[in-house]
């Protein structure tokens, strides 16, 4: 039975966690100590930079008001440039309990940790008493990434995830796929699925922007392990990654932090606008997961061939093993063995159904493997974006 925590903005969370957010790397240790090592107690998120960045501010506002978050402790050093006043106001306006601790004013490391732990413990026991309400599939937001891809990802886990996405979209859920740098070579087949010709042009432009961006950096979104696993080129990796999007019509193009207006399938454009300024768009897989959470993702479907073990703060991650050999080595980390498609143990349709059922199970309270193992990876870095154009979200 799917259930959620009702938020004032109309959304529902499938978790009800206390977020402890550091507002500069200098406050990270204190935030980590406040949260402790118990994954039930609190989840640590944050932004390491000392220089202001509109994107990071917006991402932190979205993440601190994510439906899976019930209360927020902000941990500031005191002299960083992050606008803690505005973040605090946004969280307060959302109806959530919020508190700011400023290490320089609150007596340093030891005293701030003690004050933070006391506040978090009080909030956690309060959250534990909050009632849940029934939740439907069309209230779910589900993202997908692939990481540590190999030649199996594109023929097992990714197309199976695509089938799960088709099923979720048909049920009215919101599904997000992303990493336009891993759609290079897919422009033509993808634009044919756009809801309108104007959206088709925006989809193509987002991939062309990614190709230019990566060309400037000199590397594609392609790691050496991809090649060890049999992938030869970025466009081959792209076609495999593209399979995760399934066959549904594409309803819109969003950027990190944009909340999709209704159910359907959305492409997230994660490559910054303008000149190349802050380096690689997403320096590792968790940066992509964080961006989809900022757009409301309750759950992330993570397909891996080489065997990534990461999870995430705030929203659980479902690990889908594409490669049956890897699954045997890392079974404890994996939720779904899509490698069975290769050795005849299951069909694509069966694995797609299993992924769909797993999403519903997590929204009913079941824990994913990475969640149970205490994984709470989180990373947020500098970027800059222009707002999306009017053609990106057709009515």
């Amino acid at each position: 039975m799917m259930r959620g925590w009702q938020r004032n903005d109309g959304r529902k969370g499938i978790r009800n966690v206390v977020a402890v957010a550091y507002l500069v790397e200098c406050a990270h240790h204190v935030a980590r100590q406040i949260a402790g090592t118990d994954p039930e107690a609190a989840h640590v998120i944050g932004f390491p930079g000392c220089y202001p960045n509109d994107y990071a501010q917006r991402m932190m506002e979205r993440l601190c008001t994510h439906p899976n978050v019930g209360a927020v402790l902000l941990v500031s050093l005191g002299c960083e440039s992050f606008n803690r006043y505005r973040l605090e106001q946004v969280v307060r306006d959302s109806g959530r309990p919020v508190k700011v601790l400023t290490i320089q004013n609150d007596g340093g490391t030891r005293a701030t940790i003690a004050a933070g732990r006391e506040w978090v413990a009080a909030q956690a026991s309060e959250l534990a008493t909050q009632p849940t309400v029934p939740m439907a599939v069309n209230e779910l937001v589900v993202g997908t990434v692939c990481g540590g891809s190999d030649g199996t990802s594109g023929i097992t886990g990714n197309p199976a995830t695509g089938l799960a996405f088709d099923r979720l979209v048909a049920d009215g859920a919101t599904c997000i796929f992303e990493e336009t740098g891993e759609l290079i070579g897919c422009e033509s087949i993808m634009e044919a699925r756009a809801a309108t010709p104007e959206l088709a042009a925006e989809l193509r432009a987002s991939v062309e922007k990614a190709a230019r961006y990566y060309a400037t950096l000199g590397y594609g979104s392609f790691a050496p392990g991809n090649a060890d696993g049999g992938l030869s080129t970025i466009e081959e990796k792209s076609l495999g990654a593209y399979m995760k999007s399934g066959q549904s019509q594409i309803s819109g193009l969003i950027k990190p932090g944009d909340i999709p207006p209704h159910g359907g399938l959305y492409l997230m454009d994660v490559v910054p606008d303008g000149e190349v300024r802050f380096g690689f768009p997403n320096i590792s897989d968790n940066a992509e997961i964080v961006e989809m959470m900022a757009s409301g993702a309750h759950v992330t479907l993570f397909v891996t061939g080489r065997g990534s073990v990461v999870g995430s703060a705030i929203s659980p991650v479902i690990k889908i093993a594409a490669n049956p050999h890897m699954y045997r080595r890392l079974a404890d980390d994996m939720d779904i063995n899509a490698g069975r498609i290769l050795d005849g143990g299951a069909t694509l349709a069966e694995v797609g159904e299993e992924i769909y059922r797993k999403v519903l199970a997590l929204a009913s309270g079941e824990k994913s493997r990475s969640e149970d193992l205490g994984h709470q990876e989180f990373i947020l870095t500098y970027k800059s974006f222009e707002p999306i154009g009017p053609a990106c979200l057709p009515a």
Partner: protein
Amino acid sequence: MQRSDTDPRLMLLAADDSVYVLRDQIAQGESITVQGRMVAIPQALGLGHKIARRAHRPGDKVVKYGAPIGSASTDIAPGEHVHTHNLKSDYTATHTLEAARSQAETDQEIQS
């Protein structure tokens, strides 16, 4: 779609693909059947790797999932392993640790 005169470990993903994908590994020195012809595989290949289904000339598109995944950089015979040594992206070059390692070894030799 799968031809019976081809090793069952070779999977064809789309009708007009120019490569097969390995659904299981192949040991070094093994001989496999590709469209009725025996081909010796000189090195071990892991699952997910590609074997040429037809002959490619330099510049020919290599097709997988029914779509081009780059261009052949050398002649490729049917049954040959298709990878970064004979297939190049039409977008950005592929960075491998192999290349980084051989570059590091070259640098070492120059220094010593």
